[in-house]
């Protein structure tokens, strides 16, 4: 006779009508497959934990976003934000869809070049560009977004030395009604810093000021802030034309669109509180169309959105290492993935689904990672069905920032696979090994031997 499916016995106190920090049950069905591939099969072949990228979700999300803008505005260009996820296979899916590259360091710049992105389709942002980086960007005719006066003056010196005329934009920071204001990057609009920089660039006549850039914040929960930013940049472009008869060919509104993840402490779930691509597009495109441009003069709208394009395409598959009961009665589940590879658990309440069948009984508990560090908490309070050692889970929407901000700390970084449009699995980043880590260390000769 076949034995019955076992589930850990649980008893749960009922608190009818009372609020609690664990919230209501959110998991009703197991997530046994990702894009048609069994989670257990993935873990069996590539190990646990394992990052899984869905190519289908990337392309679909990208197309949804692009369509929201192109339906409203005639000239739109996306630029893939490398820092959000610069695994080459991920970048190339975006490049195949038509994205340029948006980079913020020499390392990222060279990654984009090696991926085959033409230099004139690389946007170079950020406060840290070395002389070598600037020379490389000038050589490849990239769009250099100037962040501060020191960079502007250095770029003037370099252009004189190499006798080339780079294409540049300035990053502008501004008050869009969202606080804290991101005024650490770029030149301020309200205090006139932006105009000072523009005057210097145009009067110096060594570079072509072709664009204006801003990036007003991250995980922006109000689309209206973008409308304010777009209006202010359009106004600046209009007055540059009026004053210098100089046409600004593009306006780059940066990134910062919120994904559907739920921020820690948020009352509403992310899929309710985050604006849609249509909300952002309506705000931005209306502001540009209402600015003082004729139809023929509309500038190219560049968008560098990263998080909202890749978050949903990434999943983290993991395994339960152990269960224990805390002194206050809460159930604690220890997973084989920690904050070292799931950095975003510091600011998101990640949705976590069991990858095998379960009953409708749940327990309130906390989910920990495997690190021997008190900070290694994946979810402070979560209601989950009983799971046992060896059970698998899927953490949803982890595609943004985790595969760039992850750390080799206590444990090493795991494999990353991509499931293609035909549900075929490709290894796109190998897990780290001890040899890989040791390879970049050096041991002074006198420390090679010891007796204990």
């Amino acid at each position, binding site marked *: 006779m076949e034995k*019955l*499916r076992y*589930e*850990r*016995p*649980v008893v749960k106190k*009922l608190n009818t009508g009372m609020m609690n920090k664990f919230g209501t049950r959110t998991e009703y069905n197991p997530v046994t497959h990702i894009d048609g591939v069994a989670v257990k099969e993935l873990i069996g072949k590539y190990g646990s934990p394992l990052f899984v990228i869905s190519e289908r979700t990337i392309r679909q999300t990208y197309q949804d976003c692009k369509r929201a803008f192109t339906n409203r505005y005639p000239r739109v260009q996306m630029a893939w934000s490398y820092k959000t996820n610069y695994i080459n296979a991920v970048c190339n899916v975006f490049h195949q869809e038509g994205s340029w590259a948006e980079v913020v360091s020499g390392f990222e710049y060279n990654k984009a070049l090696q991926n085959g992105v033409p230099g004139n389709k690389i946007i170079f942002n950020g406060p840290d560009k070395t002389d070598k980086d600037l020379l490389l960007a000038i050589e490849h005719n990239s769009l250099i977004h100037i962040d501060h006066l020191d960079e502007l003056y250095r770029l003037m010196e370099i252009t004189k030395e190499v006798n080339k005329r780079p294409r540049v934009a300035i990053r502008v920071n501004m008050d869009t009604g969202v606080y804290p204001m991101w005024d650490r990057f770029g030149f301020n609009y309200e205090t006139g810093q932006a105009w000072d920089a523009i005057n210097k660039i145009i009067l110096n006549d060594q570079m072509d000021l072709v664009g204006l850039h801003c990036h007003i914040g991250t995980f922006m929960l109000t689309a209206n802030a973008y409308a304010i930013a777009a209006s202010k940049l359009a106004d600046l472009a209009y007055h540059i034309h009026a004053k210098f008869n100089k046409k600004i060919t593009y306006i780059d509104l940066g990134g910062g669109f919120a994904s559907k993840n739920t921020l820690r402490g948020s009352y509403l779930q992310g899929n309710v509180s985050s604006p849609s691509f249509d909300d952002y597009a309506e705000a931005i495109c209306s502001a540009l169309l209402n600015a003082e441009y004729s139809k023929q003069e509309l500038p190219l709208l560049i968008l560098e959105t990263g998080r909202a394009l890749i978050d949903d395409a990434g999943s983290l598959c993991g395994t339960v290492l152990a269960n224990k*009961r805390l002194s206050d009665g809460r159930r604690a589940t220890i997973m084989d993935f920690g904050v070292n590879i799931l950095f975003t658990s510091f600011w998101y309440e990640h949705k976590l689904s069991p990858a095998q069948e379960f009953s409708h009984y749940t327990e309130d508990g906390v989910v920990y990672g495997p690190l021997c560090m008190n900070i290694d908490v994946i979810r402070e309070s979560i209601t989950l069905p009983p799971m046992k050692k060896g059970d698998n889970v899927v953490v949803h929407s982890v595609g943004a920032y985790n595969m760039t901000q992850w750390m080799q700390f206590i444990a090493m970084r795991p494999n990353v696979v991509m499931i293609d449009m035909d549900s075929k699995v490709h290894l796109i980043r190998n897990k780290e090994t001890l040899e890989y880590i040791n390879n970049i260390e050096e041991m002074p000769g006198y420390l090679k031997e010891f007796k204990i």
Partner: protein
Amino acid sequence: MKIKKNIAISESGFIFNPTTGDSFSTNPIGFEIIHLLREEKDKEAIKQSILSRYAVDESTFEKDFYDFSTLLQNSQIAED
């Protein structure tokens, strides 16, 4: 360990403690264990009963039974 005499348990796994006024719910296997405890079965008999019918190994059930017993006592559903 035995279940307190005044504890009311419904067929659906709803548990009521009239002394404290607290109510609880348990899953089918928890319900089954509580019934076995009510019949004054000891730990070994409960283990054999569960292992014979459910797909679980001995060490997993022992860990879970230990945790469940502690919960029952802390919830004042059971006593030594």
